[in-house]
């Protein structure tokens, strides 16, 4: 039996890239939703962009969970072998 270096490398890369990407998306959304200068509220365009980025982040996390769970859930429900 050989050590599965590839799997270990994949886990490490997914962890680092995934975490930084999620943090970056939230930071970007946070920056977009923050008012600039003396303004009390962000402009409508920034607000739409901020919530779009947040939605993208949620979608990414949801897709990752789906990828992990779908085979097992399908197997439990008898939808595939």
């Amino acid at each position, binding site marked *: *039996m050989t050590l599965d270096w590839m799997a270990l490398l994949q886990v490490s890369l997914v*962890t680092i890239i995934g975490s*930084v990407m999620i943090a970056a998306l939230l930071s970007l959304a946070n*920056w977009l939703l923050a008012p600039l200068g003396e303004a009390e509220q962000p402009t409508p365009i920034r607000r739409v962009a901020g919530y779009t980025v947040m939605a993208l982040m949620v979608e990414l*996390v949801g897709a990752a969970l789906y990828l992990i*769970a779908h085979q097992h859930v399908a197997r439990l429900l008898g939808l595939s072998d």
Partner: protein
Amino acid sequence: MPVEAIVLIVVLTALVFDFTNGFHDSANAMATAVSAGSYRPKQAVLLAAVMNLIGACLSTEVAQTISSGLVDDQLVTPEMVFAALVGAILWNLFTWLLGLPSSSSHAIFGALIGAVLVRAGTAGVHGWVVVSKILLPALVAPTVAGVAAFLATKVAYASIGRAHKGSKKRFRQAQRVSSLLVALAHGTSDGQKTMGIITLVLVSATIASGQSHWWSAQPGDGPHWWVILAAGLAIALGTYSGGWRIMRTMGKGMADIEAPQGFAVETSSMVAILASSHFGFGLSTTHVVSGAVIGTGLSRTPDQVRWRTARNMGFGWLLTLPAAGLLGAGAAFLAEQGSYAGFVAVLVILVLAALAIKLLAGRHKVSADNVTDSAEVRVFGKALEPPATPITQGALAPVLAPALPASTLPDHPLSATPLALARLKPPTKKQRRRQTRRPDLATGHESATGHDRPGADRTQPDRTGHRHPSDRPQAETAQTTTPATPDQPSTAEPADQPVAAAQPVAAARPGVGV
């Protein structure tokens, strides 16, 4: 003893281990969220329990690593698995007592390896699987999670520097979601370990009995649906019971965590645990989260990390595999003595040890109410006691303390009256209004002192120069107790104290309070 009875006992013990795993590791998901104020403690453990249950139903890769990869399931007997579970439970309880976030996963792996080595020899353990699926990830995972948390924290704080003050609120909201996802990942990873252990028992019992039962399992099989459900429920219940001692260490002991840091910790931990579970690595969630907490602490300022706690934890990590292995080996040796006497003896030892640890933990109890009050978890030393009767701190202390120590002072007769019971509750708005309207200074009646307000210092004289009635000797209070207001009947009359004895304080103690 019929094989069904042994299987039942071992499965129940496995569920107890799963319960201890839950309360031992509930801190992994929620400690940073609780210490950063994103969730209240009780709220946090309830949500974590639900997410653990869902997570336990999402994957079985790790379960198969344990049931068919780590040890040779043809050589394993239910007694060996039982001994392993006992060793792991004892180690979990011991580290919980110390507030040490050690790995439940390594505890069960170590105990299983120890038990199998004693009874089946080296042929029973797949050494290469131990190295590749357990030892190596144990070294790599905390490092990777720490690096990921370090970078994620840098990125998170980059936007806060220029942004609105509401940023931290947004990160706190994000942390609420990310901590739930860590709980989900924990269920996915750790819930499976018990499933794997139970499946291993079922396989070994099937081989030993040579018959097919409704619970039978063959080598290489995944867990039954009822095993998945039972393990998920056990870990969820354990999580809900809350491992407050470990939560204190994780949330406060290693570094002071703010919401953006908590978000970074949880995101990196969640990604690492889910990715590892997908590849079947028996990862320790405790190691991952601890590595991430240190990473985020280093990212802000290295001074923020409490290296003494981190060093203790590292020592605990190194010790877990061999210590749990020794416990498992000892239990396995004892369990196979006699026909079933050894088995029963191990069970009795487990129960007695668990009770002793519970009693010791009660001396310095950590609960949802005080989990964030301190960074220290105490075990030995003088037990915490409620504050002493404040008579020794007040104006009469020099006179009374030498003759009557605080612990021996008789309680005031009022302590058994409804008034004393009412003091346990904070006053309602109506009562507070009455207190503020009360003409205490004009009448000189002592009951209008505001001592009963929440937070009032009963040890100090109030603005009228009086101390709380229960803090004075009987003779003095009997003379000064009066109804609170004319329209409020006195509940303060002891049966043997005449109402007529009540006197205005100004009259009883000239020169005071007027």
